[in-house]
Structures are given as structure tokens and as C-alpha cells.
């Protein structure tokens, strides 16, 4: 029966889809500022968003010029303000670093983006 086949195929197709992912929370500002030069290694990367976040489904990654992740992997939300996300950094050597963020806001929309900053002695 072609109809049943079609229905089964449609069902399989349905199951392999992921949910809606549309931009919503926007990055308002960051520390360090995107594109800026920092003298000495910054202790952490801190991001301010336009909406409250779901920390369990939000992450920051900081990578060196070689693409190697350098952060301490401890992304967490600010306990006082659910719009702020941070991650700790070990002492960084001079060079250019890329911050990639991928966040989910409380209205379940996902957003992502990236920027770089430069560390000089």
C-alpha cells in the first residue's frame, strides 16, 4: 500500500527533525569587548544578553588561534542576573582568541555568535 509507505516515511522524516531554532536573545555587550586588545590575561569572559537565559542549555567556548579550546569549561549564569553568562580563563598567552557562544533564552529560542579579542603582554 503506497499510502501506508508514505505515512511511514513521513513519520520517520518527522522524527529526524530538530525543533525550531530562531534568533532571539542578542548579545548586548561583552568583557573583553569584541575586537579589542587586552593587556595581560583576562580572568574570565563575561557576556550580557538581552533576555534571561537557560544556563543548562547555554555555553561559551574560548579558543586560541589554533582552534584549541582554552577556557576552563565552567560556563555559568550570574546568580544575581540570569541575563549574564560567564566562563573562567586560565592565564592566556599573547595571541588572538575567539569566543563562541551558543545560548538558549527562557522563551526556548536559540542564538549563537562569535567574536575575537587579542591578548598582548
Amino acid at each position, binding site marked *: 500500500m503506497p499510502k501506508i509507505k508514505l505515512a511511514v516515511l513521513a513519520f520517520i522524516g518527522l522524527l529526524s527533525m530538530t525543533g525550531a531554532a530562531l534568533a*532571539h536573545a542578542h548579545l548586548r555587550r561583552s568583557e573583553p569587548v569584541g575586537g579589542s586588545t587586552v593587556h595581560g590575561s583576562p580572568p574570565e569572559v563575561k557576556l550580557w544578553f538581552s533576555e534571561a537565559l537557560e544556563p543548562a542549555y547555554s555555553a561559551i567556548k574560548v579558543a586560541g588561534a589554533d582552534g584549541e579550546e582554552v577556557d576552563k569549561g565552567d560556563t555559568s549564569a550570574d546568580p544575581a542576573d540570569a541575563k549574564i553568562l560567564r566562563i573562567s580563563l586560565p592565564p592566556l598567552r599573547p595571541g588572538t582568541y575567539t569566543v563562541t557562544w551558543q545560548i538558549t533564552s527562557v522563551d526556548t529560542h*536559540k542564538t549563537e555568535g562569535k567574536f575575537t579579542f587579542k591578548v598582548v603582554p
Partner: protein
Amino acid sequence: MWVQQIVEPSFFLSAVARACHYASTLLLFGTFAFAIAIARPTANAVGNSADECRILRQFLLRSALAGLIAALFTGAVLFWITAAGVSGKSLANALAPQVLGDFLVKTNFGQVWQLRLAIAALLAIALMILLHRSAAKESPVGEALGGGLAAVLLASLALVGHSNDRLGTAGGFRLGVDMLHLLAAGAWLGSLPGLAYVLTRVDDPKSSIRFRIARDAVERFSTLGIVCVAVILLTGIANSWFLVGSVPALVGTDYGHILLVKLALFLLLLTLAAFNRQRYAPQLASSDRSGAYKQEVIGRLRRNTIAEIVVGLAILGAVGALVAAAPAAGEQPDWPFPYQLDMTVFATANLSLKKGFGIIFLKAGVLALAGVLAIAWSFYHRAWGRFVAGFVAIGIAAAIPARYALIEAYPTSFYRSPIAYDTASIARGRLLYFQNCAICHGPHGYGDGPAAAALPVTPADLTSGHFFHHGEGVLFWWISNGVKNTPMPAFGDRLDENRRWDLVNFLRAQADVEQANVMTYLVQPFQPIVAPDIAFQLHGRDQETLSGLRGKTNVLLIFYSVPDSLTRIETLGAARPSLEAAGLRMIAIPMENDTEVLLPEDLAAQSTFLAEPDPDAVATYTLFRRVPSGGENSSPLRHIEFLIDRAGYLRARWIPGERKGWSDLAMLQRQIDELMHEPLRRPPPENHLH
């Protein structure tokens, strides 16, 4: 285009799931609203014990049960789809208990769902008890309890919508508005099935109790509808303001377009409801109509009510898409029309023009007044021809002055820069300006570049007040696509989008430089010259931003060089505690990159206001030195200081050698006092789009 977005499968699925869940929750609450506000008073009027009343109660309870079951099922599906979306898993993989459990416990959505599940369970128990008893008699307490639980179940949907951003009082207000909107929509749309049922049961219009119930219900529904429509309109307008915020966003974004579709459907719904209320309900109530005629009216009412249900479902489809989409307030709006209104035409007109505008406004005002009177009269006398004529008159009245305020517009007219107004962007823009623009527009933007003389049209003076009156979106369009009928070329294919925005930021700074020309070391009446943002870093400290100090303190921004500035830095360093106590933060940025090496060690160590070198900041702020008319500054700049007020605006400037100025610290102190005496201004609007 939003049509493409809607047919995108994952979005479509999410929107449909939301629409179905809204529909079933609305039905659940609306059934209770109908039972309490319409069925019970009607039953009291016709005699409670009548069989027909019992049958109606039974129907409503079953309808509520169906709503609850549907709400539970669609709620579970919506939870599943959302969990898949957020965890980034496929729908099949998201069925894993770990994924669903994490989502249930760790997110706001999950926690709201826990609460709603608990309420649904209570509601199920309440419904079971009511169903068991209802055959015998009515139960006002049970209905009120069930209605309350259904209301919480519906209103709590606002907790997972766009209005929930935990913003304190303002956030609470938005949430309240959203909840009211949901409840009013539920009371209206959700009670339509009950009304349709009552209308369907009418057979003999003459003496039947069914007819009396239907007539009574139509009348009461009419009142309920008016209240609900009023609440829906008010809360809907407020909601649109929060989430869309402007006309360009309404006509130029996906979210705005879906909202327009929803509004059109809502108008259709209102028209149907208005027919019911204004024409059919009075006919049903009047005593000089025959039974057969009334039977026909009942038929029309029934058809209309079913049509209302269909349109209502379509509206919920649009709602599902709206909730699944990103609100317009954060998007770049594409302006769809070739013209826009610019009301400032009237404010900036010269005197003789103003007189002309006065007469135009007088004419328009008289016409508008006539229109309002016609509409008021039409309501009083139920004369719908005059009603329409009144609106036409108001429309023409609005068009008379609007005609003069129409200016050419472009798709990007209402774009906002995605790039912050900071010195890094301005410095990049400045470089691009000298590479691409200065040849015609001149080194200061006066339109007097070396190539200008040979051009058939004089290049625009980029510093004139009028020029920057065009929004940055318009400038962005001109830079990208050129200006029609002028030699201004298009740079869209030569510079990428962000670089063009850098140029816009530089042009803004350049226009501000012109405005700042009159600035001295004395604080003058306010001019909105925003201090371009700097990411600065004091020696050995973390990076900070100038914009981060807004609302906190006045700033003395010092650009210095060695050895010229040594004495000044020393003096300021010694006076720092007293200046800080007066409400000033000092930030000193060296004008040369190797200044640090040249600075005496003891000075470098004791000064806690010396920042790391920042060539972009130097390049940008030295633009703000006085520009002598008709010439270049010949003397090299070695030291300049700016006073920035607490809101982040440039207020005063001093260059050593320009009179005594701030070399007298008491004079600087007086300027700070002056700023501290001003009421704290609102900081400049965050210029860039987030």
C-alpha cells in the same frame, strides 16, 4: 520572507503544536466561562430543573473534559518538540528519558510545565466529581473551582512566551498584560462552541425552552463579547508595543507580517461578531417578529458562530507562528514603501512656510472634527452611511498635511547599525573615508574634495545639521547603492556590510565634530554629542568601557604625551582624590604607543588613572579638537582633555595653551560642580541593534 519561514518544517511543527495547545486550553477555560457567565444565569431564568438545562450542563462538562484531554496531549507534544529543539536532538532521540527529564527540571519551560501538569491533575479530579454529580443538580462552587484552575492553566502560558524575561516590575507588567490577553481570548473564543451548541438545539421557536435558552445565551454572550473584545484590544496593543515597538517593525519584519495577518483575521472576527450583536440579537429579542422568522435568525446566528470558530482557529494558527517566531523588536525592518512620513518637516520649516502649514492644519483639523462628529452621530442614529463617511473624512484630513511630510524612503531606511558607536569602528570608518570618500566630500566632509569641482553636482556637505537628520539606515542605503541622479557611486560591492556601517559611524562622528566646534573649557548648555565608546584598560587592571560608566560618574578623558604632559599628569595625580570625591573619574590615554617607556617610573607606579595605549581612541578623539574654518590645524596636538557628563555626552574640552582653562584646577572643579547640579540625563539610546 515569512511565508518561507512558516513552511520550514521544524518551525511549522512548532507553530502548529503551539496553536493546537492554545486552542485546547482556550476551549477548556472558555467552556467554564460559558458555564459560569452564560449557562447558569440562563438556567436560573428558565428554571434550573428543566431537562434542557441539565443536558446543557452535561455538554459543557464533557466539552471541558475534551478540552483538558486535548490540552494534556498537545501540551505533551509541545513539551517534546521544545525539548528536542533546545537540546539540539532529533525528535526521536529527544524521547530519551534523560533528555526529557533534564529539560523538565533544568529549564523555565520545564518548571512551568510541572506546575501546569499539577493543575491539570487537580482539574481532572474536579471535572470527574462534577461529571458524577451534574446530572442531579448544578454546582456553582465546583464550576468556580474548575474555572479558576482552567484560568491558571491558560494564563500560565504567558510564562513561556516572549513576555517572560524576568525584568522586575516592568517584566511583571508585561506578563500581566499577556495573561489578561489570554484570558479574554479564552472567555470569548472558548465559549463559542457552547453558544453554537445552544443554537443547534433550537427546533421549535414558538414556545420551546430551547429557544428561550438560546435567546438568553445570545444576549448574555453579546455582553461577555464586548468586555472581552475591549480587553483583547487594549492588551493586544500593549503587547504589540512591547514586542514590535514601531511601524517599520510591523510592516518590515516576519513577526510584524504575521501579526498583520492576525489583525486582519481579528477584524474579520469582529465583523462577524458585530453582525450577531447589532442585527441578529435584537431581531431575536423583539416581540413583533414571527416564530418562523426567528427560526431563520437562529440559523444565521449558528452559521455565523461556526464561522467565528473557524476564524478563531485561524487566529490561533497565527498565534502559534508568532510565539514560535522571534519578536520584531530585535530585527532589522525592511521598509516596503517608496515613501515615509517625516513630521520634522513642519518643525524645521521657515516662517513663511510655517504660516502655510498653519492653514493646512486648520483645514485638516476642521475636516477631522466633521468626521468625528459624523461618526458620533452615526452611532446615535444607527446611520452607517455617515459612519463610513466620517472615517473617509478623517482619512482625507490626515492625508492633507501628510502629503507635505512624505519623503523618499528605502528598504534600509529604518535599519539600525549593528556595529556599536565606538572608537574602534569610527577609526576603521575614518580610514575607509579617506580611501573612498574624501576625494569628493573633502577631508572634513564639507563637500570640497579635490575632485568636487569637476562634478556636475556638488557633493553633499556631510556635516550640515540637515544631513545627519536622515537616519543612519538612509545613509547606509546611499553608501551601499549610490544616490540617484548624482555622481555618488554605490559601494555595496566594494565594501562589506559591516565596513559600510563603520563608515556610517564615522560620518556621525564627523558631523558631531562640527557641532563640537563651539565647545570650550566651560560647560555649555546641553548638546547631544555622544562620547564615542572606548574599551580602555588601566595599567594592571581589567578592561572597562566608557559606556559602562554611564549613569555613574563624570569622566575626565585625557590624551597625553611625554614629556609635554608630565607636569599636568603629576598635578592631576595629586588632585585625584579630591576630584574623585567631587564626582569625577579620570582616564588618561597616551597619544604615542611607547609613552609608557618614557614615563618616569615613580609617576607610572603611583598614577591609577593611566590607561594602556589605544591608537583608535586617539585617532577618534583628536578629531574633536577645534577645526579652524578654512584651514588645517598646523600645530601638532600634544595634549587634550574632555569632560564627559554622567549620561555619556561630551560637554567641555580643553587644550593647554587655550587660555588658562583647566590648568587652574579650581576652574575644572567648577565645571564638575555645574555638571553635578544638572539633573541626571537619560543615557544616549543604545545606537546599535542587538
